[in-house]
């Protein structure tokens, strides 16, 4: 196994430099057992410092989706702790869950846009339903639209857009409330390679603006080309966590 320490967990990261960045996300010895007895995750340790860009790779059923669900507190860990921006998910009272979710921006493979709303309304929706004052919504939506380059398409409906544009709308929605971390679950899974690169460029830019990005993906080309931090899961265990890694384990 690669010697790469989980970045930020110990004194040294892959570069042998002390990592003083604040961790946004900490999984400590996490096991998730579903009611049918299957261990979806087993003894997972993961620390993601602020501003990191992490690829989460692994075959279907390796535990990527379960990990994502733990992060947004759709599921609770059976053992161990999941901490997001200082909040222990297991100790979080129910009414605080929405507040923690506002620190996360989520992007899905199937976009999850509302077909009866325009691009602008889809993005504004995330602010409206979290009780943001009306006068703040307009400017925030305009900024998000500009960031993803959809200002011209703002009044179109999702079905009038291409797949890439729909995903950019979803990214704008994930960003509009200034999240600490963006979690992207196979965001390029439904897109062709060229468009996938566009989406990746967008996520990288967002990361440069200081937002932590955690992206689950099957796309080996992208992972190998970008040389970011790669966390590989297999049968619920972290089998590799290296900075600057490829999709596959290095030779």
């Amino acid at each position: 196994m690669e010697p790469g320490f989980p970045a930020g967990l110990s004194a040294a990261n892959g570069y042998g430099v002390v990592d003083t960045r604040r961790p946004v996300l900490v999984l400590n010895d996490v096991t998730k057992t579903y009611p049918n007895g299957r261990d979806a995750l087993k003894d997972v340790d993961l620390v993601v410092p602020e501003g990191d860009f992490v690829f989460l790779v692994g075959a279907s059923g390796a535990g990527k989706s379960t990990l994502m669900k733990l992060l947004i507190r759709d599921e609770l860990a059976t053992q161990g702790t999941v901490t997001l921006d200082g909040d222990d998910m297991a100790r979080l009272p129910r009414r605080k869950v929405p507040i923690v979710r506002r620190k996360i921006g989520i992007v899905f493979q199937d976009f999850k846009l509302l077909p009866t709303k325009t691009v602008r309304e889809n993005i504004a929706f995330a602010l409206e339903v979290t009780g943001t004052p009306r006068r703040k919504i307009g400017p925030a939506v305009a900024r998000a639209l500009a960031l993803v380059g959809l200002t011209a398409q703002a009044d179109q409906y999702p079905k009038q857009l291409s797949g890439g544009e729909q995903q950019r709308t979803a990214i704008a929605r994930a960003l509009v409330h200034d999240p600490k971390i963006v979690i992207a679950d196979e965001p390029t899974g439904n897109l062709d390679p060229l468009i996938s690169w566009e989406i990746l460029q967008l996520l990288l830019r967002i990361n440069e603006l200081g937002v932590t990005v955690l992206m689950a993906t099957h796309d080996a080309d992208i992972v190998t080309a970008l040389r970011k931090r790669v966390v590989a899961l297999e049968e619920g265990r972290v089998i590799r966590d290296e900075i600057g890694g490829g999709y596959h384990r290095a030779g």
Partner: protein
Amino acid sequence: MLSFLFFSISRAWQGFWRNAAMSLAATATMTLMLMLLAGFWIIQAGFLASLTYVEDKVGVVADMNDGVSEAALQDLEARLGAMPEVRSVEYISKDEALRRYREERTAQGQDDLTSYLAENPLPASLEVKLRRPEDYQAVAGFLEVDPAIAKVQNIKDTTDRLISITNFLRTFGVVLLGVIGAIVLFIVINTIRLAVLGRAEEIEVMRLVGASDAFIRWPFVFEGALVGLLGAAITLGVLMGAAEPLSHFMVGFFQILPISIGSISRDVTLLVVGSGTGLGVVGAWVSVRTYLIR
């Protein structure tokens, strides 16, 4: 708080029209169910009034001895009138009894046999109307032991049977209305549940972007209330349209029965608006709750 209310109501309004097909289907179901409920309520009201009308006919008739003094009669009438079970007391004198008998014979086209008699054979009597037919025995027992009374006409068996029949019919009516109510409840709630199910993705997105439960729930609750109010309005409109020709048809009905159109229409309006809004709100509440408990 006010802006939250404004937000919820405007979102409810938007949600209703942007999913017009589903909303109108829910409203149509709501309308039909409210009509069913209102129809049964009206029938039930007429039915209960009919029962009361029949029960009012139960009274105690007591024949008096001849030669009871005026003072004894007034005393007896006063004591009867003071009983809580008694609604009214009417004294039928011997002459009055004879007059009524003759009238009856004439009306039936038969000979007046009493003209062959030397004196009036009919007794004077007291006709006592009761507040409740169940009190028959108490009043009859009171009269039987009075020295002025010759005989109490015994209709106890008939009264008992009438009471058991009317009580059965009353219970049956209430049970039937309950069953109809339950059917309406389930159909309406299921319709709203389907409408909410069609918007599961919207709820999912709200949850994921960090909307609190209240922000997810209340727009749907207001939308449910809107469906209920709209259904109630249509139902009342249809009933009002039908009321004019119906009341022509039922004028006789309302003249006989102790019931007024005014009280029925007030009750039905309250019923339709109340249950429409209530069902809409409860239906939306329980349907959205499914998505919030997780």
